[in-house]
């Protein structure tokens, strides 16, 4: 899901004060440690994503928000 879509869904759910407080590149080497990135998917990424883009196939974000008080 794109960051924009995440924030939009949070607004619709009723969150307020939504802030992305950190963004980090999530590259193919980080992805190798995650079970949903299967060996097969990693291989497809390595073959199809240009080498200079492989350090950021996704972004890891920290999102903060709160509910309005009463």
């Amino acid at each position, binding site marked *: *899901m*794109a*960051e924009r879509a*995440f924030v939009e*869904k*949070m607004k*619709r*759910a*009723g*969150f307020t004060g939504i802030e992305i*407080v*950190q963004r*980090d590149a*999530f590259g193919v080497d*980080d992805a190798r*440690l*995650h*079970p*949903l*990135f*299967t060996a*097969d*998917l990693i291989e*497809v*990424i390595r*073959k*199809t*994503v240009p080498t200079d*883009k492989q350090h*950021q*196939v*996704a*972004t*890891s*974000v*920290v*999102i*903060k*928000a*709160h*509910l*309005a*008080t*009463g």
Partner: protein
Amino acid sequence: MTKDLMHSAELKDLVREAYSSVVSDGDATATRLYAEDELAGVPRSAREFALGVGNHLRYADIQLGETILDIGCGAGIDSIIAAHRTGPAGRVLALDFLPEMLERTASAAAEAGLDNVETIEGDMEAIPLPDDSVDHIISNGVINLSPRKTRTLAECTRVLRPGGRFCVSDFTIDEEDLPPEVLTHPAAWAG
């Protein structure tokens, strides 16, 4: 069942399968995401199965006495850190849909000498907690796994009390940056 719900059930099975057969990466993920002082008080078993994507706890500003919900607690690394921070007057509700993850969290909490971590088996799309029962939601690398993210976020606002806080780490992807071969790969639906 509608096609959409069937698809959603299949996706959840895929996630269950991936996480129930997960193997430890040593502490590569834990040491990449957390500083040594943040890991003090976290048993090795929880460090070795850390599967998160970020360190939102640096921003969460957990207060003493809070009731915290950790969505998709996995082996418990963030639940343990949060339980130390909220102290004996607070508690952490560690939610996961895999019993084997909850067992890891419970035994790590016991090993850390914490009795304020309560494990709950359940789905983030139907959180088994009453309305307005939680002060603070944390979660690490989990919401992107929900086939129905709108529903998951609605559950979050339902269980949070008015003024309640939410602080999570997760993945986002920019579909325009990824080739069709990646976007259409069966394992690439999350994110």
